C-alpha cells in the first residue's frame, strides 16, 4: 500500500514554548485530498490536531493552510500517487491560535477598512422592482465576486512580508468589485485604494498563485485599479512621473550612460560557418542594452555557440511595461506600433522568432501587447520567446564540453518569467546542465526581488526590504549565491548589496546572471 508522510506544524500555546513539526503516515488512495489526510490523522492517529474545515468543496474558505509553504485550500489539494511527503503549515501573516488554526482578524480588519458594501445615494429610493442594469455593466464586478475570503492571498503576499500597513490583495479586489458596480456611489474608493497601498504591489502575482478561486488579481484587479486611478488623476504617483519622463525622453527606464549594446554589435551577427540552426530577432530591453552590455554579449555568445544567427535591431523602443504596470494603459499605443511594426518587418523577411532577454519585456509582449495590438488593429506575424525558453524548447542545445563551474547556489525565479507561463524547471534544468553546479531548493518559488510594478520608484525602501528578505531566505538555506535571469531582479539585489557594502556591512553574497554564467561555460 502506498503511504505518504504529512509533516505538520504543531503548536499548543497552553503547553508548547515554541512550535514544532510532527510527521504522520497516512495511507494513500485515489483522489485523496490534504483535508482527507488531516481528517484521517485526526480520526485514527492523533485527535488533538486542530484545523478548520467546512464545505470540502472550495466554497466556504475554512480550510486554508499552507501546503509546501504556499497558501491554498486543503480540500482542493489532491495528493498525487507519486507524492511521498507533504509539509503543512498554518497561513502566514497571522497569529497562530493553535496548530493550523490562525486568527484571521488582520485580514477581516483590512477588508472592513475599505467599506466593503454597496454605498448608495439616499436619493435612490428602494423600489418594488429590481434595478434595471444591463448585464455588461455588471460584468466586471461579477468577475470579482468569486472571492471566498479564505485569506490565502494575504498569507502569501510578498509586500506584507515587509510592510504590514499594506491592505493586501483581497481588499483591493473587493474595492474594484464595488468601484466597478454602476450602483455604487462611493466616489472615494480609488483614492482610498491608492492610500492603502495600491502601488505597493510589485505585481509578482504571488497572491494569484495562492488564490483557490483563480481570481485574476494582478491584471484584473490591481493593474485595473491603477488604470482607473490614472483616469481619475489620482495616479501616477510623482515618482512614477519621473520614470515615465525618462522613458519618454530616452526610450527606456534607465538612462544611457555607456554605449548601448545595440551600438556595440552589428545588426546581424553570425560568427559561425555554415547554415544557422535558427535565425532570431533579439530584443534586449533597456536594462541589458544600456547597463548590462556584458549580458547582451553573453546571450549573443550562447546563440553563436548554438549556431543561431541573431538580428539586433537598433530602432526598437521601450516595451512600455512601466506604463502598463502603473496604470498608463492609454499611453501604450506608440510602443505597440513601433515595436510590432519592426517585428512584423522582420517576420516578412522570414524571421518570425522574437526572443527577449528581459522577463519584464517578455511578459508585456506576451500578455498586454496582443490585446492592445488587437485594439489598434496591428497584426502579429511573429512569436515571442524568452532566451532561456528558446534555449530549452526551440533548439538542440549544445552542452558538449561545457566548462565545469563549481558553485553552490539557489535559483531565483523571476515573477515575470512565471507570469509568462514559463516553468521554473526550465531554468533549473538549464542551470544544471553546467557541470559542477549544485542548486539548493528554494523553500517556495515566488519570493520577490522588489523590482517590479513600479514599487522601486515609488517606495524604494519597501523594494529594498523585499530584496534583502529574498537574500535572507537564501542565506537561511545556507546559500551565498543567487542565480537569476531577470535584469530587474539583478539590479534590485545588486542595489541592496551595494548599499550594505557602503555601510561597511559584509554580506558575503553574490548575484550571478544566468546568461553570463552559461556563456562563460562555453569558453574553453
Amino acid at each position, binding site marked *: 500500500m502506498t503511504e505518504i508522510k504529512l509533516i505538520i506544524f504543531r503548536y499548543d500555546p497552553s503547553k508548547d514554548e515554541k512550535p514544532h513539526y510532527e510527521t504522520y503516515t497516512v495511507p494513500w488512495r485515489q483522489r485523496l485530498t490534504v483535508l482527507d489526510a488531516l481528517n484521517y490523522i485526526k480520526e485514527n492517529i492523533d485527535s488533538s490536531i486542530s484545523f478548520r474545515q*467546512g*464545505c470540502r468543496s472550495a*466554497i*466556504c474558505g475554512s480550510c486554508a493552510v499552507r501546503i509546501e509553504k504556499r497558501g491554498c485550500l486543503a480540500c482542493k489539494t489532491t495528493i498525487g500517487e507519486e507524492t511521498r511527503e507533504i509539509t503543512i503549515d498554518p497561513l502566514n501573516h497571522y497569529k497562530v491560535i493553535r496548530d493550523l*488554526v490562525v486568527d484571521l482578524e488582520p485580514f477581516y480588519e483590512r477588508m472592513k477598512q475599505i467599506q466593503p458594501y454597496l454605498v448608495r445615494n439616499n436619493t435612490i429610493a428602494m423600489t418594488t422592482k*429590481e434595478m434595471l442594469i444591463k448585464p455588461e455593466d455588471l460584468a466586471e464586478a461579477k468577475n470579482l*465576486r468569486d472571492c471566498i475570503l479564505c485569506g490565502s492571498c494575504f498569507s502569501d503576499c510578498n509586500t506584507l512580508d515587509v510592510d504590514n500597513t499594506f491592505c493586501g490583495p483581497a481588499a483591493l479586489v473587493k474595492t474594484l468589485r464595488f468601484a466597478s458596480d454602476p450602483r455604487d456611489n462611493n466616489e472615494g474608493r480609488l483614492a482610498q485604494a491608492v492610500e492603502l497601498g495600491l502601488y505597493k504591489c510589485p505585481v509578482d502575482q504571488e497572491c494569484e498563485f495562492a488564490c483557490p478561486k483563480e481570481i485574476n488579481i494582478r491584471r484584473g484587479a490591481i493593474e485595473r485599479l491603477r488604470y482607473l486611478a490614472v483616469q481619475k488623476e489620482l495616479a501616477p504617483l510623482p515618482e512614477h512621473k519621473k520614470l515615465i519622463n525618462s522613458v519618454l525622453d530616452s526610450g527606456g527606464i534607465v538612462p544611457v550612460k555607456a554605449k548601448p549594446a545595440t551600438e556595440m554589435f552589428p545588426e546581424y551577427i553570425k560568427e559561425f560557418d555554415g547554415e544557422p540552426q535558427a535565425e532570431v530577432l533579439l530584443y534586449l530591453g533597456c536594462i541589458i542594452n544600456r547597463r548590462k552590455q556584458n549580458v547582451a554579449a553573453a546571450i549573443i555568445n550562447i546563440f553563436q555557440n548554438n549556431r543561431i544567427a541573431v538580428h539586433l535591431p537598433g530602432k526598437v523602443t521601450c516595451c512600455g511595461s512601466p506604463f502598463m504596470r502603473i496604470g498608463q494603459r492609454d499611453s501604450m499605443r506608440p510602443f505597440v506600433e513601433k515595436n510590432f511594426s519592426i517585428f512584423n518587418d522582420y517576420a516578412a523577411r522570414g524571421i518570425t522568432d522574437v526572443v527577449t532577454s528581459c522577463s519584464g519585456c517578455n511578459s508585456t509582449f506576451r500578455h498586454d501587447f496582443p490585446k492592445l495590438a488587437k485594439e489598434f488593429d496591428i497584426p502579429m506575424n511573429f512569436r515571442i520567446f524568452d532566451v532561456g525558453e528558446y534555449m530549452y524548447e526551440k533548439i538542440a542545445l549544445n552542452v558538449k564540453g561545457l566548462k565545469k563551474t563549481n558553485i553552490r547556489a539557489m535559483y531565483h525565479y523571476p515573477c515575470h518569467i512565471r507570469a509568462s507561463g514559463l516553468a521554473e524547471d526550465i531554468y533549473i534544468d538549464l542551470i544544471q546542465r553546467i557541470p559542477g553546479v549544485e542548486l539548493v531548493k528554494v523553500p517556495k518559488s515566488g519570493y520577490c526581488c522588489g523590482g517590479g510594478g513600479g514599487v522601486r520608484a515609488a517606495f524604494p525602501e519597501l523594494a529594498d526590504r523585499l530584496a534583502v528578505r529574498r537574500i535572507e531566505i537564501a542565506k537561511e538555506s545556507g546559500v551565498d549565491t543567487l542565480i537569476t535571469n531577470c535584469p530587474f531582479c539583478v539590479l534590485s539585489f545588486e542595489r541592496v548589496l551595494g548599499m550594505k557594502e557602503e555601510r561597511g556591512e559584509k554580506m558575503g553574497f553574490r548575484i550571478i546572471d544566468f546568461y553570463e554564467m552559461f556563456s562563460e561555460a562555453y569558453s574553453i
Partner: protein
Amino acid sequence: MEIITHDIIIIGAGLAGQMAALAASQSSDTAIVSKVHPIRSHSGAAQGGINASFGNVSDDDWEKHAFDTAKGSDYLADQDAVEILCKNITSRIVEIDHFGAIFDRMPDGRLAQRPFGGGSFPRTCYAGDATGHEMLNTLYEQLIKNNVRVYEEWLTTSLMVENNEYKGVLAINLKTGETAYFRSKAVIVATGGCGRVFERTTNSHQSTGDGISMAYRAGAQVCDMEFVQFHPTTLVGTNILISEAARGEGGFLMNSENKRFMESYAPSAKELAPRDIVVRSIQTEIEKGRGISGGEFVWLDLTSLGSEKLMEKLPQVYKLAKDFANVDAAQDCIPVQSAQHYTMGGIRTNNNCESSIKGLLACGECACVSVHGANRLGGNSLAETLVFGKIAGERALEYIRKKGTPGIQREAAEKEEERINHLFRSGDESVPELRKELQNIMWERAGIFRNESDSREALKAVKTLKKRYSNAGVKDSCRIFNTDLMQAIELGFLLDNAELIAQGALLRRESRGSHFRTDFPQRDDKNWLTHTIIAFKDGKPQVTFEPVRITLFKPEARKY
C-alpha cells in the same frame, strides 16, 4: 462564567440568521453567536438559485409559485405559510438586489430567471451557479455596514429554558475554550440542517443539526423530521453538490444503456421533476443494474450545452467537476449519485417563526414552518431564508418590547458546564467511530427507500449509539480551539436528529415526497395529511400529530 447580555441573540450566521440580525438590529441590541465565521456558513454552498414570481421570462404570479410549492411538497406544506413565502419573496430579492447582490440579468436589465425542478415556469433568479455565495457575501457586507455584533467561532451547547420560556444561551468560545452565558430576552435559532447524520451528504462538516437538537432538548416541538431531501446529482465518492441548475440549463441524466431514463419516470418534466422523484428514479436505475458499469452512479451529461454556456451559466459546476472528479464537463459526462441534501423538518414554528417555547424563534433550514412539506423545491430554501429570516427578526423585536432581561439560570448553567467538562473523560468509545456507525446506519436504514423493519432497526441502533456516546471521551485536553471537543458535542446533536428522523420514518406509514416506504408505497391523505410533532417531555419523546393547513389548493395526484 462570563455573563454577556444582549436584547436578542441569533444563533447561526447563515442567510436566515444574517437576515434576522439585519432586521432585529434596527432597533435592538442584537448579536449573532455562530460556530463559524459568517462567511463560512453553509448557505454559501447553495448554487442554483432562488425562486420568485417576477414573471420576467414568462407570465407568473405568487399563486402559481405557491401551487408549485404545495404540489412539490406533496401537499404537506402549510399553505398559509407558503402564501407568505411566495407573496414576500419578490420584495426580499429586490431588497438584496439593492443591497448589492449581483444577480444575472436579461439583456434589458431585469433579473434573469432559469427553469428549476418542479417549477411550471423559469422562476429561479440566480447569480451564475454560486447564488448562495453571492447572497451570503451581500448580507455579510450589510452586517459590516450596520455594525452588527458577531461572536464568531462560539459553539452554542444549550438553550436555557424555564417554565417553557427562553432565558439564555450557553456557548463555548472556541478560540479560548471558555464558556459564557448569553442572557437575552429572545433567541432566534438559525443553525441550518443536520445533513451530517448521513454517510452521503452534500452538507458541510458543520451541518450537525445543533439548533434542532438544542431546541428539542429544551422541550420545543420538532416537526416532520422524517422528511429528508436527497439531491439527485452529487459527485460520486465525495458527494459534492452539482447544482440542479445543471439540469435547468439543459443537462440530462443517462444510465448504462445510454438511455435518458427520466423520460419513463416523469414523461413531461423529465430531469426537471422534483428532487424526490428524480432521486428515486436514479436509485431504481442503479438497483436494477443500470448504473454505469453496474456501479452506484449514473451520468450527468452537460456536453450538449457547449463550453461557452457552461462557463457562463455553470462555472462552478464546471470547476467542481474538474477539481473534485477530474472530469472536463464540456467533453465528458459527470458521474453522479444521490446524497442527503436538505432537512425539511425542524423546530416547529408558527408563521411568525415562533416555536412552542416563548421567546424562542427559529428560521431557515432548522425550522419547520412548514413551507417545504414532504419535499422542498430547488430554489425555495434561499427564498425561505430571506422571507422568514426577516419575519423572525421583526417578530423578535415585537416580542422583546414588553420584556425585561431575564435572570440567570445559574443552576442549569452550572449543570451544562459540568456536562461539557464531563466530556473530557477517558471513555472507551471513540467519537469518530460512533459518528461513522451512525452515518452508515442512517444511510442504509433511513435513506431513500425505507420500510418498517429498517426504520425500527435504525431507531434501535441510534438508541444504542446514544448509550455508547455516554461513554465516549475527548482525549485532547487543551481547551484552545479544541475541535475534538467540538466534534464530540456535535455528535450529541447528530444523535438527537437521527433519533427524530428514524422515529418519524417509523411512524409515518405512507409514502409522501421524500419519505418513501416500500411497504406503504402510496400517499395516504385520509390518515396522513398531518405533521409529525415530537417533543421531549417528562424525560421521553412525546408524539402528536397536527393537521396540515390546506388553504389554497386541494391535494391532488402529483404527476410531472
